[in-house]
């Protein structure tokens, strides 16, 4: 029985090695990471548009900024980084960021 188990282990290892040598592509699977935005008016709109291009931790890692800075950042995403955000929704996002991640200024 013992010999049989050892043989089984050897065959399994050999099988893995063979599969690896056949597998030419080097592949990884990125982990799914969930980041929750602060609850508040405009959260859904913010999540909907911002997460087209990047994870929401891009927002949550920032320090608190005045509304003027959030306005510059959202406009940069639209004009420079090519985010397809209609003007009315951009306003909702800026208001949300200023309210939830703002300095109050």
């Amino acid at each position, binding site marked *: 029985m013992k010999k049989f188990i050892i043989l089984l282990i050897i065959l399994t290892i050999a099988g893995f090695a063979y599969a690896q040598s056949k597998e*030419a592509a080097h592949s990884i699977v990125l982990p799914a*990471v969930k980041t929750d935005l602060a609850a508040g008016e405009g959260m859904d709109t913010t999540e909907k548009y911002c997460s087209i291009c990047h994870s929401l931790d891009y927002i949550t890692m920032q*320090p608190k900024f005045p509304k003027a800075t959030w306005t510059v950042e959202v406009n940069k995403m639209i004009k420079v980084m090519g985010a397809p955000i209609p003007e009315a929704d951009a306003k909702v996002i800026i208001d949300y960021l200023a309210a939830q991640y703002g300095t109050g200024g």
Partner: protein
Amino acid sequence: MGPANFSRRNFLKAAGAVSAMAAVHGFPAELLAYERRMARFPEKTDLILLTSRPPQLETPLSYFKEMITPNEALFVRWHIANVPTSVDVNEWRLKVGGNTEKELALSIDDLKKFEKVTFTAVIQCSGNGRSLFEPRVAGGQWKDGAMGNVTWTGARLKDVLNSAGLKTGTVDVSFNGLDKPPLPTVPDFVKSLPVDNALEEDIIVAYEMNGKPLTMLNGFPARLIVPGWYATYWVKSLSDITVLSKPFEGFWVKSAYRIPDTDCGCVPPGTSPKKTIPINRMTTRSLIIDPSASSELTLNKPATIMGVAFSGGRGIQDVIVSVDGGKRWEETRLGEDEGKYSWRQFFYEWRPTKPGKYTLMARATDTIGESQPYEGLWNPAGFLRNKVEKTEVIVK
């Protein structure tokens, strides 16, 4: 791989470290809207998670006690969401073309036929230390862990370019990788170097880091190494080299990764520069690694102050340290010299004889006399941080 990787213990550990750092750097911890999580990505160990898509992962400072940063601990920084996650090396080709005599499509074996070059070089993100800027600036909120010291092996870019044959009138050379934008409107991540820089001896297309294939997240199967320059130019998962007879106009050089065109690369805090240039060589920098911030040391017991110092590819001349907040400075002993692109370790034997709080500081000077400012130099993008940092410790 899933969210289960983010253990509460590690999360709390990171959050605690952030609070300690915040206290040392003089701003209250509550101003940090973001508490740092740890995450384990493929082929990497537990690193500090900045963002997950695209991945941005920071190295905990304790890894810098070693001369060489292990592959699994090296920081990760991608720009656009669709990062390569699968590469078949039998299919992969490095295409070289544009203003050249011929077009090349090099396999990894072709690349390995060029003379093999190996050296150790610091890789550092342009925004390393950005979160320590005051006033704070938007962007990846790195502390000091967006750097590492790695032994790279590859083919000289110069040899690759010469085998394609540069035609006259070449101005710039651009570099594109396998990462792709999430929308056609998002600018693809493409970088360029002026041709004179691109032909410099020590720029390589690396296919090994620390003697092993590159990890996927650090640019498998090959990446550009521009030693002495910030890592924004070290294009990962390189796929296309294009030789240009006109200046490169792409977003990531023309509009992003720019510094004020002033002697210090800085402007008065909160202001905008009148003129900017592309970021280039790294500024001279040092960091005390051991003891770490907020450590408790024992009275009358010898304690070695250890850290790392590096420059924009000119080696390190000397490092001085202070244990009293900069009133008196002492010479340190430098560790092994692994070449001008590597960092240099420094050591100072200290025996604290009075209890209390101490402010440790280090200041490096490179071989052409470039050193570090005592106060932070500010620019709107949060680049070039190299001020003399303060590490507070307690002696009991």
